[in-house]
């Protein structure tokens, strides 16, 4: 799954190395499989955050509040 080029999947940052923003790397846990990824494009990301990783780069930090939006939508749909 990790080898497929255009998939982008969520994982949890377990550690971060490097200070320079452009060369910052993180260890990312994908449900038990760990891989390194560049954190150059998520300067705000911290250990414990979930990020979407694509070809070795974290491209977006997942917003925990917004992650519930789908379920909130379902709830409102039912009430309507």
């Amino acid at each position: 799954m990790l080898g497929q080029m255009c998939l982008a999947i969520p994982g949890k940052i377990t550690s971060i190395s490097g200070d320079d923003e452009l060369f910052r790397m993180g260890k990312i846990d994908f449900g038990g499989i760990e891989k390194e990824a560049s954190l150059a494009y998520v300067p705000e990301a911290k250990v414990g955050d979930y990020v979407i990783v694509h070809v070795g780069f974290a491209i977006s930090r997942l917003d925990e509040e917004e992650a519930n939006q789908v379920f909130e939508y379902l709830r409102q749909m039912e009430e309507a």
Partner: protein
Amino acid sequence: MKYLDEYRDAEGAHKFAREIARITTRPWTIMEVCGGQTHAIVKFGIDQLLPREVTLIHGPGCPVCVTPVELIDQALELAARPEVIFCSFGDMLRVPGSKTDLLAVKASGGDVRIVYSPLDAVNTAVKNPGKEVVFFGVGFETTAPATAMAVYQAAHKGVKNFSLLSSHVLVPPALEALLNAPDRRVQGFLAAGHVCTIMGYEEYLPIAAKHRVPIVVTGFEPLDILQGILMCLQQLESGRAEVENQYTRAVRKEGNLPARQLIGEVFRVVPRQWRGLGEIPLSGLGLSESYQAFDAQRKFGVAQVRVPESAECLSGLVLQGKLNPRECPAFGSRCTPEHPLGATMVSSEGACAAYYRYRREPAEPAGIQTHH
């Protein structure tokens, strides 16, 4: 796994499906742009949850699939050179050029290496100073920041034996091309969520307004896709044509600013030939003036020849949403993932590969929630 499993919940999927059926009053045709979404739809049987009035057609969002034959031929020419280490994503190796593919070049002695990240190619160049390392940069806006960073780091570290063969493409010009086609069928789009994590979605506003077409930025899990379809249908049924964002947990309106900045630094927008769609103006990314030294086409003088596409492969029609893979006479017989006629049967995102994998027989869908 968190952020995956909860979006594959069968009960939620059926709730969305019921609501979709409830609000749909007439036939609508929606295109999911991205090949990753096509795979999820076919794998989880999302299309089979929809009422008969709603037709999903599969879009051109598979970068491997739209890479033109002449660029594959240039890749083959470069990969066969004795001084070159040719680095590529694995998806490209079986994609047929006009005569052969990268796997065959590798089998006959070419140094072709599969990389996971463009940065791996830069590291290969650092470790092999006596060789020329060429990276085949294929992808949409999602992948462009990774390629941009590889070129930027190579320049920064003075890695002169690294270069890029760029086949990077942009989504909005392809949507425009599809919308301008005289026999246009598509009435609404699910925009590719991961492309929009990078670019945001402001550039879709004028497209939605000009062509009166709803565009919903959508994620990749079953509940995301069903919600995206529902939001699109609500717009269609009420006569609206707006840009909406379903994938709010990952996509912000302005996108990823550091990534957009580096794309802007390293690349410039160029015309690009698309397999199946022809040349689309301002639809590709080539290296900007300051990074020309890393342009493999320039460095090795590979010839820019036009190569006709295979007549037997109908992937051009598949990529435009005009033909379902199973309607192709070669599907599953003369064309399989082992012996593909075209890239749509090869790539992990290609529509033909999705149907071959999940729908060769009138198949049971993989099942929401149970399959990971």
